[in-house]
């Protein structure tokens, strides 16, 4: 990746992270930790990778992105707004009574949201359905889906994983936001999903492991995944929950609580 692109992406990720803080701060609730951990991945997808058109959100040939870890809605909304799907000013209406920006992604209300999610595991299955449909229609688009590491404790995830491998869905690229924390604490203590790479390989997936905050690594992994034939790819992206905000990093407590005014200011200063 050239330096100019890298600088652009880093800057954009920072802007998106700032939105996450401002949105959850204004809402007084929401999920900043797991939104920040995914900010670099989402930034890469929306500003370098996805074949999408904000002026034609229903373009049939578009790539699809499903946020299966729906509680990270703030990062998705921030990326969509920055990408021009709706006004950036609307972001701070998140979770408010008259806002179209629901606490979890709602495809009927928000332009650019490909699937309604929030109940964990469900988005992953819908992405399998999209990939099957795209294959049927001989489309050359890709179906991307982002999962949480706590989310994969849901049985439905493994039902969908089996189906994607069985149907050899090489048009499907999953990314695991492996930040290591869920609401009740470290994923390894609550209910360990390890050994993760082995599990996904055993389920028939190509597995790539990367640093989820390294844009070069994200790019290489996605490009590699697009070349994989005959099976879907899982990119296990090691990330830091609360990334970029010192007092939020690696703290499970910031999974589902919003920063207060003072914390918002401190976080924004760190993200400037």
């Amino acid at each position, binding site marked *: 990746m050239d330096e100019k692109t890298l600088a652009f992406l880093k800057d954009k990720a920072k802007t998106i992270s700032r939105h996450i803080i401002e949105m959850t701060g204004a809402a007084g609730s929401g999920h900043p930790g797991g939104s920040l951990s995914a900010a670099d991945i989402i930034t890469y997808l929306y500003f370098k990778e996805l074949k999408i058109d904000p002026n034609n959100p229903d373009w049939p040939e578009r790539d699809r992105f499903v946020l299966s870890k729906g509680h990270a809605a703030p990062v998705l909304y921030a990326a969509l707004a920055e990408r021009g799907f709706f006004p950036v000013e609307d972001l701070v209406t998140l979770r408010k009574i008259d806002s179209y920006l629901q606490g979890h992604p709602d495809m009927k209300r928000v332009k650019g949201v490909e699937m309604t999610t929030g109940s964990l595991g*469900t988005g992953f*299955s819908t992405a399998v359905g999209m990939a*099957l449909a795209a294959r049927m229609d001989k489309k050359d688009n890709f179906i991307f889906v982002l999962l949480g590491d706590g989310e994969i404790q849901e049985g439905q995830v493994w039902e969908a994983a089996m189906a994607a491998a069985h149907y050899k869905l090489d048009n499907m690229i999953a990314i695991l936001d492996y930040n290591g924390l869920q609401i009740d604490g470290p994923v390894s203590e609550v209910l360990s999903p390890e050994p993760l790479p082995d599990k996904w390989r055993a389920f028939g997936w190509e597995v790539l492991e990367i640093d989820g905050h390294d844009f070069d690594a994200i790019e290489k992994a996605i490009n590699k995944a697009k070349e994989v034939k005959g099976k879907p790819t899982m990119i296990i992206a090691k990330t830091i929950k609360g990334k970029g905000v010192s007092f939020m990093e690696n703290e499970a407590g910031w999974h589902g609580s919003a920063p207060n005014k003072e914390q918002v200011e401190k976080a924004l200063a760190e993200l400037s």
Partner: protein
Amino acid sequence: MESMATRDAYGKALVELGRINKDVVVLDADLSKSTKTDGFQKEFPERFFNIGIAEQNLIGCAAGFATSGKIPFASSFAVFATGRAYDQIRNSVSYSHLNVKIAASHAGITVGEDGGSHQMLEDIALMRAVPGMTVIVPADGVETKKAIFAAAQYVGPVYIRLGRPKVPIIFDEDYIFAIGKAAVIKEGSDVALMATGIMVSEALKAAELLQNQGFSAAVVNISTIKPIDAETITKVAQKTKAVVTCEEHNIYGGLGSAVAEVLVENCPVPMERIGVKDVFGRSGKPQELMEKYGLTAKDIVDAACKAMARKTK
């Protein structure tokens, strides 16, 4: 009388639908020989997807197909399709009003020998409670085919409840089915038997028995339980001033509840409910179970007499 299982009619209708509508895709969860989707699989293998014994993923995949311009029919037994995948139906399908058709077979007590674990008696209640869901229970093979075609034309989520055993053919090909419309299939003035699914033919038998006793019973086929046809129900109740609902479902949350909601708001009249009385089923032959759980024409007659006796003079 000619008879046919509604699941058989579904299988045949799917194939015909598949021939005229290339957007129709069918998903099943390892029960295609029982749900009768195997006919579609045979003719359109490229549009059939066996998802395996994984109902949550079955419904999730169907939702994904619906966002890609397809008309997915997802099938399994009613107990699994609505019970195991309730969250997926709620959050992935109906919350976004996606165009998914859930056609579930083996509903009700007449599953028979498989017993209580497989006899789904709460599916109408579950599906009726989901905002935006249309709930259809066809009475026979003819109506099933018409309902499947109507569901495919309608844009939005639909639950279609199908049965395992053969049931009498009530309607001829001229019968007009419309989503949301109840049909008065026999006029009457003393009591109205409002039935759904396989209980419609029992209600017709009951009407004959009542006739022999000198009572004139109307029979109403309520095949769309949601949205319920409040207008027809009210009109008939105003005339007969006594109502019996008949369903092969728990008496809570199904047709009886839906009709009671309409009547209490529009035309309160004495009403009795025929259905399984809040218990799980058990193994046995379908007919034996219908008798054991009080779902026969004779039970309907008794309930009708009770309702008529409660009329205010």
